[in-house]
């Protein structure tokens, strides 16, 4: 009887010497980023200038907004391949609102609202019909959202937005592009939400084990809907910056964005099966792929070669994480 009464004590001190594996992965990404910048500078004299670091991000930051919620979705163990179409539909709705005489701010709200509705719809489908894989459901909505954009705008384009709107995508404050500033704010928010709030913790829990999360009282469906809605919202934000940069709206914009965004998230060390990864990695990946494209472009490397290189980079990086995880397990 005495033996049963022993008590174990649980330490609450973190063992600082064990560096988490994922931290290492992010350091690796930073090293790759530096490597790419050094390399780009070496092959093109035009690369290593202040201008590059200020204007180049303009060219690739728009997708970065979608990388943040897509990280959440992959952490949930789900996927959303309809985001490119949401970009198009929110842009089209914005354009139509503007065309019908609404003030620009209202048009912007329309776009954001459209994104939210699309995202919410995706979330609703994925919770109501959770038997079906998200890949299939969002594949269907992808076609529907894109199709609806065509139905609405046909082959027309809408342009003539006010200058201040165009400036969103092209302007700078104190030398730093506006798009970059907005991204920094949004990224900090998403990071804080994922790593410092209950909501973020629950995303990991759902990603690892959905049923356990439900039984533990986590409002799984609500969280999934929120995440997909955020995804829609950020797709709308992307559409705003994209249309601002293009100062024109068409039904065919944002084609293929979903795969680029997913590739960035995966390169950032987020596992597609859910639960594994942090948000910093995908953020660094945005810059890795962005600077790689920009730098190679400046060096006159053909775009299909760049695509090929990014494909190989994606596979090699995932292969390396896998090998490391495998070693870790034994």
């Amino acid at each position, binding site marked *: 009887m005495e033996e049963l009464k022993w008590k174990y004590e649980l330490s609450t001190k973190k063992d600082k010497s064990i560096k988490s594996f994922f931290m290492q992965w992010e350091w690796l990404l930073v090293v790759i980023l530096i490597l790419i910048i050094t390399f780009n500078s070496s092959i093109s004299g035009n690369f290593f200038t202040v201008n590059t670091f200020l204007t180049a991000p303009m060219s690739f930051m728009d997708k970065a907004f979608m990388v943040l919620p897509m990280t959440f979705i992959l952490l949930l163990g789900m996927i959303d391949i309809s985001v490119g179409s949401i970009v198009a539909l929110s842009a089209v709705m914005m354009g139509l609102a503007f065309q019908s005489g609404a003030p620009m701010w209202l048009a912007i709200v329309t776009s954001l609202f459209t994104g939210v509705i699309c995202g919410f719809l995706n979330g609703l489908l994925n919770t109501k019909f959770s038997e079906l894989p998200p890949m299939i459901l969002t594949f269907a909505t992808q076609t529907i959202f894109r199709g*609806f954009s065509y139905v609405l705008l046909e082959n027309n384009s809408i342009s003539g937005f006010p200058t201040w709107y165009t400036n969103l995508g092209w302007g700078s404050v104190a030398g730093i592009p506006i798009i970059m500033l907005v991204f920094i704010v949004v990224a900090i928010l998403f990071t804080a939400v994922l790593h410092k709030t209950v909501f973020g913790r629950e995303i990991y829990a759902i990603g690892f084990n959905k049923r356990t999360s439900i039984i533990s009282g986590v409002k799984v469906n609500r969280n999934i809907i929120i995440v997909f809605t955020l995804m829609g919202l950020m797709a709308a934000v992307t559409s705003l910056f994209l249309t601002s940069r293009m100062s024109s709206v068409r039904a065919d914009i944002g084609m293929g964005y979903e795969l680029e965004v997913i590739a960035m998230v995966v390169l950032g060390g987020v596992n597609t099966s859910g639960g594994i990864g942090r948000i910093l990695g995908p953020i660094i990946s945005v810059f890795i792929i962005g600077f790689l494209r920009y730098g190679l472009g400046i060096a006159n490397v053909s775009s299909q070669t760049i695509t*090929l290189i990014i494909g190989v980079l994606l596979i090699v990086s995932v292969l390396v994480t896998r090998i490391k995880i495998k070693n870790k397990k034994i």
Partner: protein
Amino acid sequence: MSENILKKNRYKNLTKNMNVKEIGLLVFMIIAMIYIQMKNPQFLTGTNITDLLKNTSLLGMLSVGMMLVMLTGGIDLSIGAVLALSGMSAARFVSIYPDLPVVFSLLLGMMIGIVTGLILGLLVSKGRINPTIASLGMMNVHRGLTYVVGNNAWISAHQMTPAFKSLSTGSLFGLNNLILFSITTFAIFYYFLQYAKTGRNIYAVGSNYEATSITGIATNRTIVTAYVLNGLIAGLAGVLWVSKYASAQGDTGVGYEMSVIAACVLGGVSVRGGVGKISSLILGVLMLGILNNALPLLNISTFWEDFITGFIILVAILLNLYIQKRQKKDALKRRAI
């Protein structure tokens, strides 16, 4: 003993119910066909049906390969790029060596398909990379290679030999070669999946991955086999594609993987693995083929096409799910408590 018979009978009812899925799709298709026929009487004519089958045959072949991959629980987004790579290579080959028998270009396309399938299969099985990501990466690689092989140019009809072009235009027993190719593919893989050990092992791997090592199935080899066969079919289809349209472009088949996956999903192939039949798959492929054929015939504005296609896919998969749920509920009600 009588109880035994009773139970077996009950089971027979159950199998009948399981086909409800297919019957549902069939009914859906028939209704759609009647509607189309009413709108445009040219729909159910010999020529149009031949056109429809010809245009759907490559989709059919590709979806068989995709089904093999999906049965293992995988997916292949690179299939469109493989199509382009093998087609471009074969066309280039034909234009450089017009005197060699056409079989060589077919073999070349299949070889390329096998190699791409092997790489992807190894990445997925040995490399343990998620198939979506692995095939996404390979899609980029193959697409890039296609431009390299094609030297940024197209290969046009006049650069191809008549024998090469007749691969897809010729016919046997009154049936167009393409249709024959796809029927043969369906037949071979029906046999393969039903009566060959490797075929059954593909189902087993997708049904319970963990158990395969205990059962003594060479898991990785089975997965690689599925991807290689998929690559082989895609490589073959690539050559036929180029032969059919008598032109090879760098951007051949961009996004075609989505049509192929849609056909599989409509045909009841589970993305989770282990579930899928050739018979249902044929229905799914035909459904998509009818859709592609009928939209222009119905004189529907081109701007509505995507929307309608997406909507029908969504309705079909939700209907499928509803039928399954309904069946389960009925079964529960029948349970005597």
